[in-house]
């Protein structure tokens, strides 16, 4: 089975190289990307299913956010209470990202004006 696959890939490479005229480098890139996709698909197949209540991600962390969020932070929008209260430091980081992006753009455009 494995050897058949290799043989098929080789024939496909020859087909691409001599009949379609693709460069060798891009054939190699295609194969490498295919390999990565192949292995990633296994990891994806193993992931916990989306929305299943028995997932490991549904532990005490979101539980407290959902149950105690409104009384602990005063915001009935749970997302808002997470991003601006429980994890506000991340939001400060994101605001800094915006500031830095502007600083980078302004500085670069100013110095390369001509």
């Amino acid at each position, binding site marked *: 089975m494995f050897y058949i696959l290799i043989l098929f890939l080789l024939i496909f490479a020859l087909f691409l190289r001599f009949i379609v005229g693709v460069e060798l480098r891009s054939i190699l890139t295609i194969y490498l990307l295919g390999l990565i996709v192949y292995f990633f698909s296994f990891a994806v197949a193993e992931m916990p299913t989306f929305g299943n209540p028995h997932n490991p991600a549904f532990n005490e962390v979101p539980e407290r*956010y959902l149950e105690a969020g409104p009384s602990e932070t005063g915001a009935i929008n749970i997302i808002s209470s997470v991003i601006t209260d429980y*994890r506000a430091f991340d939001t400060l980081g994101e605001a800094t990202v915006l500031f830095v992006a502007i600083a980078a753009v302004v500085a670069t455009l100013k110095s390369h004006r001509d």
Partner: protein
Amino acid sequence: MESAGHQPVLIIVLLLISAFIAPLLYRRWRFLSGAVVLAALTGSFITALLLLSKSGASSSLSYHLGNWPPPWGIELIIDPLRVYMLLVVTGVSLWIFIYALGDLKHELHNDVIGWYYSLYAVLVASMSAITLTNDLFNLFVLMEICAITACAIITIKDQRECLEAGFKYLIMSAMGTGCFLLGVAMIYMVTGYLNYSFIQSELSLALTDYPLNIFTAAALFIVAFGTKAALFPLHVWLPDAHAAAPSPSSAMLSGLVIKIYAFALFMIFYRVFPRSLLDTIPLNEIILWLGAMGVMFGSIYAMLQTDLKKMLAYSSISQIAFIFMGIGLDQPLALTGGLYHIMVHAFTKSTLFMSAGAIIYSTGVRRISDLGGIGKVLPLPLFAFTIGSASMIGLPGTGGLISKWYLALGTLETGRILFLLVILASSLLNAIYYMPIVINAFMSGEEFKEKVKIVPLSMQVTLAAGMILVVISGIFSRQVIIFFEQALTSLY
């Protein structure tokens, strides 16, 4: 764990606030904006020293942002290793900033210097936060800030190469950040936590249920940090970026920015991944081999360069690989060597880039072959260059010897003679490409022809300080090594 006071977060916030007001001040009072950032850097360095005296060599303190306990909120941790890294980050950046105050006037447009100060302060803030944070998603946000600022302090120079190099760096580091985010998502999906300590205890259980997800995440982490820290096959952005940037930026990027990612990888290996994961897949082995290849190829590429700064940049690739070798050998002595090398290389490579910057500032010469006889007209920069080269080679009396010595002890302890040979060969190669410059500069008979400008005082002071630091790290290393020995016992 006891509470830590507000010092850890004040370091970060002080720098951020100074960064936010520096460009506003620069419009009206140019002098003040530099002074504000300088004050913030000094303040953060002093605060880091206070933290060192507070935490000592074995205790660890934790700070809960917003008063939310760890799995719900973000946690900063102060333990000996992080305090060491924090001291290196804040100290070295303060030192480079003093140099930058003198050097920037001739490298940049007058209008953008305020923005440079601001970007610099944000960069230091993000790096100190990366050392302190105990939360994976927070680490991602900080890496994003660090990547953008590191790019911006390259492209800020008015030259075409800088744009090209910065763009290349931006693309590569965006790829690295993306890989990291994907890995964090996978880890979160199978454990449900973002806090390092909670992940570590949960991950050994999840390893039986979701092995492939965790392997993929580990691979993504290695690619992410490898790209950002210029681990051997992913280093392609580094030489252009570090060579094209203004000299203070080069010193900063080579001296600190790439090391912060090596340190973050170290933290992830020992504080996020449980021991059982490292035993299941040979992550350390991969890092070790890539590091050894980086040591060799970086040195060989550096030998072939004709541009002074490009040579220093390739030398950085081989030196950062030493730190990765220390992580890869997975053994206390080697880790001591690797971690000590973070500090030594920060001192040494910053000194080298500063002296290169001083040479370029006062003569405009960049080619290695044009440097004959320059030692007679610019004694101080070339003397600093000599001391730095000695430390790169690992001559006695410099810090380079100590870190390589402990790395070599680590290879002997684990019985891997091949890697000892790699370390020795790299020292030899370093000697081959550093020594001719020094000998040519001081001893060749030819006269130096170009016109020479006087080096500003702040640059001279920082160069002298660099020499002293390199020598001190070689002579008074005993204290730091004992500190590491105590700190590293918590890992095993």
